[in-house]
């Protein structure tokens, strides 16, 4: 019974990580209908930026985390005016191919700067684990779960209670109409890319201290994030939360009681079932 409780907790923690990884994809698709295949590498970039500030500049984790979120967000925001605005009006495939190529370029640049060796980002927490009665959780991942909840809350609040959120929602509903009503579509698109990048960078800097930092992990991250977003319903924040947690729990239980190392198999099986029976995703809306 304790083992089952521990595996469920492992699943929730892993699932919260999936949610955190997938939020950036959700916001970008929800608003701009863009599929960002550079998502995985932005996650890794967030980790490398935090690592660079800690190891080279000697900064503590917290300012490094803040700088990582800020810089990944700025980098992502700049991608729009420099590259992605040229895709306006093109079909979805163009953004996929462009961002996929971009991901490979960024990965090579990361490898050029930091090499291929895995690194670790020291966790700022003094305890390795947090004991919850008979079960435990990795302290850094517990912190990432809280970070995940805070970011989801802030995102929903910002989208529903601020003027910027109103404009973003207007952009998501009807870009032409929003432009006619005075919304500066270019600037707002860039801001949306920035928000997506910042969320992804935050995910990297929060989750990676629990594991290792490697440029090669970008691909697996992107795959899991896309599976979560598709299962949850493209563009749906609550769908992302439900799908991320469900995927985390299902993979933990299968891993613990059936067969190890099946994360991606499970993710793609769920994805396949969703595509067959509910193509709009768990909480996505039918257009």
């Amino acid at each position: 019974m304790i083992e089952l409780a521990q595996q469920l907790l492992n699943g929730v923690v892993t699932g919260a990580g999936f949610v955190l990884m997938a939020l950036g994809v959700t916001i970008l698709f929800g608003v701009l209908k863009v599929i960002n295949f550079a998502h995985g590498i932005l996650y890794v970039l967030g980790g490398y930026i935090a690592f660079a500030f800690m190891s080279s500049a000697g900064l503590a984790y917290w300012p490094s985390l803040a700088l990582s979120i800020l810089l990944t967000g700025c980098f992502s925001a700049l991608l729009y005016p420099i590259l992605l605005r040229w895709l306006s009006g093109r079909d979805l495939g163009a953004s996929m191919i462009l961002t996929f190529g971009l991901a490979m370029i960024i990965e090579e640049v990361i490898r050029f700067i930091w090499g291929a060796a895995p690194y670790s980002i020291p966790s700022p927490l003094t305890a390795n684990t947090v004991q919850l009665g008979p079960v435990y959780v990795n302290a850094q991942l517990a912190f990432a779960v809280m970070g995940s909840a805070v970011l989801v809350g802030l995102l929903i609040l910002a989208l529903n209670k601020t003027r910027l959120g109103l404009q973003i929602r207007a952009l998501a509903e009807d870009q032409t109409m929003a432009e006619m009503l005075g919304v500066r579509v270019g600037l707002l698109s860039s801001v949306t890319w920035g928000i997506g990048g910042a969320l992804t960078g935050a995910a990297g800097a929060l989750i990676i201290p629990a594991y290792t930092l490697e440029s090669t992990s970008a691909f697996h991250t992107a795959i899991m994030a896309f599976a979560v977003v598709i299962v949850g319903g493209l563009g749906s924040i609550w769908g992302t939360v439900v799908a991320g947690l469900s995927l985390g729990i299902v993979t933990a239980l299968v891993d613990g009681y059936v067969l190890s190392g099946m994360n991606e198999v499970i993710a793609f099986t769920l994805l396949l079932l969703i595509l067959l029976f509910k193509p709009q995703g768990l909480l996505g809306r039918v257009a």
Partner: protein
Amino acid sequence: MWTRARGTQLVAAAAGLAITASACGGGGGTAAEGAEGVVSIGVIYPMSGPNAFVAEEMLNGLQIAIDEHNETSAGAPEIKLLIEDDQSTANTGVSAFQKLVDRDQVSAIVGPFNSDVAAAVAPLAETEGVPLIATGATATHLIEADRKTFYRANSGNGLQAVLTMQYVTEELGWERVGFIYQETDWGEDLRNISRTELEERGGTVAFDIAYPPGTTNFMTTATKIGGQDYDGIVVAALGGEAAPLVRQLTQAGVEAERIAGYSIDPDQMLENAGAEAIAGMYMSTPFDPWNDEFTNEVSKAFIEEYEGRHNSKPTLYAAQGNLAGKLIAQAVTIAGGGDRQAIMDALDENRPIESVYGKITLTENQDVEPPLLIQQFQADGTPVTIGRVSED
């Protein structure tokens, strides 16, 4: 017209495309100069993908041996390396081989590293008559195929697994042993041989857990092990997987003294798992650059050169790359040029070579079998050699 359902299908298709693309990418070698007196040697290493760090290390070690040859072997042909990336996938490895052999007309090839890539490339090398000096590629079946063109700059899994199991059963008294291994040719082969050796020694398998390459979340594995009865755990993990695995096992309550690993890079373990997590853990390796007792003049010079170039101690992978470089340099010198058959004849002469492991010769299996060192991480995370085992 755009719909969410259509978007979902497009994304799924793109995800599939991305997986395919990642498995089919190509490398980036340069053409041979073809100048007189220059012998082109191909290198097939996983310069990108999950084993890129290992490849970087092997290439660093190899380059030192080749530079040394080019600078000091007056009268011998100069060697030029042409590097191709196999991305740790068999298909890309085959493409890399074909480029090096058909386009660049290389005289021999160093690599691959992964056993499954070597398994795809070795039959082609045999057909084309190209000597292949693998670094890594430890799977037993590669040697059992008895190919004339297949050489290896390290021992196979068999020796390492047998000697490690000998140590943990005889010296540490482990009877019930669990295995956690990377789900690759390398990991499965190590597990199989270790298992057989354990059972032949009267031990039993407590559990047997495989994980896909690139895994860093081992929480469910650590939980699963919590309820098991075992004396020790033998781990076959590479690169960025070993540190999070050991850290998460110890966080789940597994004592590091009950974990033994194969050829894990100690520097990386200390840096990425931390001294607290690894203190007490055992590992087996043929190369110890930390303790003077286990270094010779060649390895001292190699360590010094490596530290000068890369500001860190060489890993076992760098040592393997260096030995591969020394083997090919000696063979090219004896052959007096780049004729493939002459290079194989030179390798088959089996002349002793001064290496990082001491004076060494190729075995009848065309690989090397240096003695295995058993190390244990101390409280500050430094590895100390506590035993030496060999077939003798």
